[in-house]
C-alpha cells in the first residue's frame, strides 16, 4: 500500500476575527494521516475540531502554516481546484445530515455521481451498492423528511461513500442519534473503512465514536494535547 500521507498538516494556525481583535481557534497543529486510518479529533466544545476538519476539507483555509491533502496544498488552491478536490476525493458527513430535502433517498445518493459525469447505468450500480453498504435498500423513493434520524445519517453516509472517496470527514456524525443507531452507523463506517480502505477522520466528543477509533487525537484550545493509537 502507498505509504505517503494522505493528510500532512504543519504549524497550522487558524485565526478568526473577533470584535476588534482575533481569536485563535487552531494554534500550531502538526499532524499526518496515512491512507486507511480510522481516526478522530477529540476535544471539548470550542477546541477547534470542526475548524480543522473544515480546513482539511478545503472548505476553509489556514491563517498560517500549511495543510496538504492528497498532494494538494489547501491554502494555494483556487475555488475551482478546491471544488474539484471535494468533488472527486472527499466525502462529508455532518451532524445534521444536510440531505437535500426535495430529493429522494436515491437522488441524494446519486447527486455526487451526477457531478462526476458517470453514465446512468454506472450511477445506478454505484447508488445501489452504496445503499446496500448502509443497509438501506428500501425507502429509496422516500424523501429525507419522511425518514428517521438514523436513516437520514445512513443516507448521508451512502452519499459520502458512493463515489468511493479516499477520505471521509465526519463531524459529530452521531450527535443526533440514539445509542443503537450510533453503533449501527459506526459499525457500517468501520466496515467500509476495512473493505474500501477509505480513510475516516472524525470530529467528536461522543464516547461511542471514540470507542471505535483506532487513532485518537485530543485537541485542547487549538492544540494537539495528546494522541493515542489502538492497534486491533
Amino acid at each position, binding site marked *: 500500500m502507498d505509504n505517503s500521507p494522505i493528510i500532512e498538516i504543519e504549524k497550522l494556525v487558524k485565526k478568526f476575527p473577533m470584535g476588534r481583535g482575533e481569536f485563535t481557534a487552531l494554534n500550531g497543529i502538526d499532524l499526518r494521516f496515512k491512507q486507511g486510518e480510522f481516526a478522530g479529533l477529540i476535544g471539548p466544545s470550542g477546541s477547534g475540531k470542526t475548524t480543522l476538519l473544515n480546513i482539511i476539507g478545503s*472548505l476553509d483555509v489556514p491563517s498560517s502554516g500549511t495543510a496538504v491533502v492528497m498532494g494538494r496544498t489547501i491554502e494555494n488552491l483556487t475555488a475551482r481546484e478546491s*471544488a474539484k478536490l*471535494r*468533488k472527486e476525493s472527499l466525502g462529508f458527513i455532518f451532524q445534521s445530515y*444536510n440531505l*437535500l430535502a*426535495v*430529493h429522494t433517498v436515491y*437522488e441524494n445518493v446519486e447527486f455526487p455521481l451526477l*457531478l462526476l459525469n458517470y453514465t446512468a447505468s454506472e450511477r445506478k450500480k454505484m447508488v445501489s451498492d452504496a445503499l446496500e453498504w448502509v443497509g438501506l435498500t428500501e425507502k429509496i423513493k422516500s424523501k429525507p423528511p419522511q425518514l428517521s434520524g438514523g436513516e437520514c445519517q445512513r443516507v448521508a453516509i451512502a452519499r459520502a461513500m458512493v463515489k468511493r472517496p479516499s477520505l471521509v470527514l465526519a463531524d459529530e456524525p452521531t450527535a443526533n442519534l440514539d445509542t443503537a443507531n450510533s453503533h449501527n452507523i459506526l459499525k457500517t463506517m468501520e466496515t467500509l473503512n476495512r473493505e474500501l480502505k477509505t480513510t475516516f477522520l472524525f470530529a467528536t466528543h461522543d464516547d461511542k465514536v471514540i470507542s471505535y477509533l483506532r487513532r485518537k487525537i485530543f485537541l485542547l484550545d487549538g492544540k494537539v494535547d495528546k494522541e493515542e493509537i489502538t492497534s486491533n
Partner: protein
Amino acid sequence: MILAIKLAYRNLIGAGLRTWLSVTVLSFSFVVIIFMKGVLTGWDRQAKTDMSNWEIGGGQYWQKNYDPYDPFTLNESHAPVPSELKDEITAGNIEPSLIVPGTIYPQGRLQSVVIKGINPRQSILLLPSHKLDTIADGIPAIIGSLMAKSLKASAGDHIMLRWRDANGTFDAGDIVITGIFSTNVPAVEAGQIYIPLEKLREIMMMPDEATILTFRDGMKTLTGLEGWILMTKDELTAPVDKMIKTKSAGQSILFGILLLLAMLAVFDTQVLSIFRRQREIGTYVALGYTRRQVVGLFTVEGTMHSVLAAIVSAAYGLPFLGWMAKNGWKMPVDTSEFGIAIAQTLYPVYSAGLILSTVLIVTLTTAAVSYWPSRRIAEMNPTDALRGRLQ
C-alpha cells in the same frame, strides 16, 4: 447545465405554493401583455384596413392647396383633373372627388358641412355611392349614420343645402337622403355629405375639377403631377400608428406594474431561499460545487419561474388568446367617440415576434432579478453556510 435545470425544477416543485404564486403572477403577465399588445396590433391593422377601404384607397393625390384640417382652404383647393390620369379614371382605377364647403339647414337650423362629390359608380371605396345613382326630387345624397343621428335625418328626408359656386355666387337647393351608411371610420362621415360628382361640378361650375384623386390599392403611383401632391397610404395612415404608439406607451405602464409585481415575487422568493437554504448551499459546496456554480444554480432556479410560467400560460393562455383572435374582443366603450377608426369588436393579432419577445424579455428580467440576490452566495463562507448561521 442540465443538472442545474433538473435541480432547479425539483427545488421549485418542492417549494410548492410559493413557486406557484410567483408562476401565476408571471404567467398572468405573459398573457395580459401578449393579449393587450395583440389588441393594439389588431387595432392598428383594422384601423388601417378600414381607412383604406372607406377613405383613402391605395393612396391619394391632393390638390396642392388641400388641407383636410383647414376648411377655409376648400375654396381654393380644386383644379382640373390632370390629363395624364384620364385613362385610369375612365378605367375606374382612380376616382376624382371634389370637396367644397357648404351649409345645410336641417329643421331650420344651420350647420356647416363639407360637400363631397363622388362618382356613384366608383368601386374603390366601400361608400355605398351607388345609392346616389338614382332619380330623386332633389340632389341625391348619402350620409353616415352618426351624421344622420346628429341631424335627426333618415332616408327620404329633404334638407336644404346652400353653396357658393366658382363665381362666388350663393345658390341653394334641396338634397334628398338616399342612403345612410355606417362605418368604423369617423373621418368619412363627420360633417360630410356625399352627392354625385357631376352634379357637384355642375352646381359649383367647376367642370372636370377635383380636390383629391383616390387610387386603387396596389396601383403604380406617379410623382411630379403638376399642382398635385402624392399622399401614399403610409403617409395617410401615419396618424393611426401615432395613436397606437400613444396607446402603447399607456399600456407599458400597466405592463411595468405587472412585471414589477411578478419580479417582486421572484425576488422575494430568491432572497428567502438564500437565507433559508444556507445549509443546502454549504452542502452543494461540500459536494464539489464552487460558490459561483451555486450562484448559477440559484439563478437558474429563479429564472425557471418564468419558464414554468410560460408553460402554464401556454396551457390556458393559448386557448384564450386563440379564442379572442377568432371571436374578437367587444370594446366595452362606445367606439364612435374615438376620433380614429375603431371597430366595436377588435380582433387581436399576435405575431410570433410578439410572443417570443415577450417571453424573452420577461425571462431575461426574471434571470436578472434571480441573479441579483444570488450573488451574495459567492461571498458566503461555506463553513458558516453549513451551520446555517449567517445573518
